[in-house]
């Protein structure tokens, strides 16, 4: 017999035997997988952002298929339409839940917040935060190295080169919270969107006393409390020289915005005011 023929024969028989073994093992240990998992997974964005609280999209799909209701299950990055289709697959009712969005609470742009020193380390907010309070006099604000941009799987946040601050693309942002988890200064807040997607917030995290904050940044909250007394709905609290507007209580009346002497309260997606054609700060992101 020629060596070629022998080797073909040996390999062929070995392959056949092993194939049979594999076939029988696969038969014997076959795991019945819920076909819904596959279908759900196809609908999900596949970014594995972790915003739902499950380890990746596959984990979320499995959880949806296993769960007896859709309660507490929400892909933060999906549109409502996608969630409805997932609910159709699982056959459960879906509660209308508000979609969310990331809000950057710092207006300390290069113009508003002058640099007082220079950071020359690696471009990472997390590393910069270990060194000191940042390049400006405000140690609470944005460090500007864009860790949030790197964290976003949806390309929904970018650094504005003019202001040096991150800007959220409201269309793309699903509020998964990856950026907020990455920000070492915790300036990004994940909020529920309301119907018209309007929101009013204090765009500052500075907890220093008024004069110190003001010296560091021209639009810092100085904790004067004017907004607190202007608010008729008890939605604003003042803690550690910093005002916070509770979105659940806020009725979007915009009184506080005009009261704020520092213009650190920002209103988004409102129609322009009739009486005041020029708002002090234009915010059309």
């Amino acid at each position, binding site marked *: 017999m020629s060596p070629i023929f022998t080797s073909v024969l040996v390999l062929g028989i070995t392959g056949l035997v092993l194939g049979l073994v594999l076939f029988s093992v696969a038969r014997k240990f076959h795991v019945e997988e819920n076909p819904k998992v596959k279908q759900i997974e196809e609908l999900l964005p596949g970014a594995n952002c972790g915003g739902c609280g499950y380890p990746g999209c596959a984990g979320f799909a499995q959880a949806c298929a296993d769960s007896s209701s859709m309660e507490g299950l929400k892909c933060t990055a999906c549109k409502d339409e996608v969630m409805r289709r997932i609910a159709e697959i699982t056959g459960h009712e879906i509660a209308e839940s508000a979609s969310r969005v990331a809000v950057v609470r710092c207006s300390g742009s290069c113009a508003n917040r002058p640099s007082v020193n220079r950071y020359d*380390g690696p471009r990472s907010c997390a*590393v910069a935060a*270990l*060194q000191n*309070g940042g390049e400006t006099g405000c140690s609470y604000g944005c460090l500007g190295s864009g860790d949030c941009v790197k964290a976003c799987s949806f390309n929904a946040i970018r650094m504005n080169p003019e202001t040096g601050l991150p800007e959220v693309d409201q269309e793309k942002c699903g509020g998964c919270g990856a950026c907020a988890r990455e920000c070492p200064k915790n300036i990004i807040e994940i909020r529920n969107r309301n119907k018209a997607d309007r929101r009013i917030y204090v765009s500052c995290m500075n907890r220093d006393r008024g004069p110190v904050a003001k010296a560091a940044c021209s639009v810092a909250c100085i904790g004067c409390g004017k907004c607190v007394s202007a608010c008729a709905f008890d939605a604003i609290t003042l803690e550690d020289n910093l005002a916070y507007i509770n979105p659940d209580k806020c009725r979007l009346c915009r009184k506080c915005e005009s009261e704020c002497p520092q213009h650190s309260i920002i209103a988004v997606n409102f129609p322009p005011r009739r009486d005041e054609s020029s708002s002090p700060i234009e915010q059309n992101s």
Partner: protein
Amino acid sequence: MSLRTFSTGGIHPKSNKLTASGAIEPARLPSQAVFPLSQHIGAPAVPCVSKGDRVRVGTQIAKADGPMSASVHSSVSGTVSKIDSIVDASGLRRPAVFIDVEGDEWEPSIDRSDNLVINVTMSNEKIIERIRECGIVGMGGACFPTHVKLCPPQECRIDTLIVNAVECEPYLTADHRLILEYPDQIIVGVRILMKTLGVERAVIGIEENKPDAIELLRTKTQMVSGIEVMPLAMKYPQGGEKQLIEAVTGRRVPPPPALPAHVGCVVQNVGTVFAIYEAVVKNKPLIERVVTVTGEGVSRPCNLKVRMGTPVGQLIEQAGGMPENTAKIVSGGPMMGRPLLGTDVPVVKGTSGILLLSEKTAARKEERNCIRCAKCVSVCPMGLEPYKLATAAELGRWEVARESWVMSCIECGCCQSTCPSHRPLLDWIRLSKKKK
């Protein structure tokens, strides 16, 4: 005979000890002293004075908050003007007590005479209590509360006290001058510590570049049993606790959470030993320290005996003013020091030196790719793989860093200073230590 040193890694930076020959000068009293409440590792102290209170030199102004903390005392006499915040040596704005200086009136309980007391009869408990009350912390830079270090875990039997007189950081000479000017006090301090720890043997580890200090200590300790002066070969970071233990005793401290006490050693900086002498014998809290003010362009580099809370700007003035090309003010030495954000930052318990660096020396060089030369591995005194730890941190793979013993890193900076690609290895490693 070749001198002892630690076995793994280490580098030989240019020592630049510009101030080794000048005597310690007293620094001028500031017009306002600022005392950050967090000058040590552990919980910040809680202020126990309020605005308008009159204080004397040595008055306690903030109490230790819990066992892992240290109290803060006023180093000046005057009036508390406010309790506010200041950007301190950490670069963050943190609470501090501000005192307007009026005169120089000391607490009567402090013995200000120069009399040397050799025999200390105080009980061990009382000594530790006094050290705690006086707010003594490790003065090598880490600022670990000293009373905690003197109460090692029950299961550890301490047999050696090591006094750290290595001062391996380039430029700094504060400890060197302290030994030359207060040798007797330091030896009494060592004996107090030996008695408290119940050890028979104390070793003063000191690098060979300080022959005058070695000679002086040798003469002084001839008559004292149990204290040995051990010259060590020069190598950075020999002043690191674990490196010094290995150099002196040959024992290696296991990775954290093991302590030096687990190999039977307690290490105290020579500055701390002096502070302990003053606290125990003279009842003087930690209100002064020697600070080296130096740098290439500094016209009159010197060692100053500074009251805590003095703004560093004033020290720089006393050293001949800030050179024009200064780009960085560093608190501590060039290897482990931290850049300061301004000249208003007050001197605190851990300020061993003020180093002024020019743009040329201070600037980071452009970062390039890792060329896998493994220089960082060969110089790491802890036997780690800095390139791997840094890359893991850069990629956010914290578990990889943790498995590669990132928590053993002592942040000496050998890797970063030796990297031919100028990679910011230590910055990334520090980050992954924080993310544990």
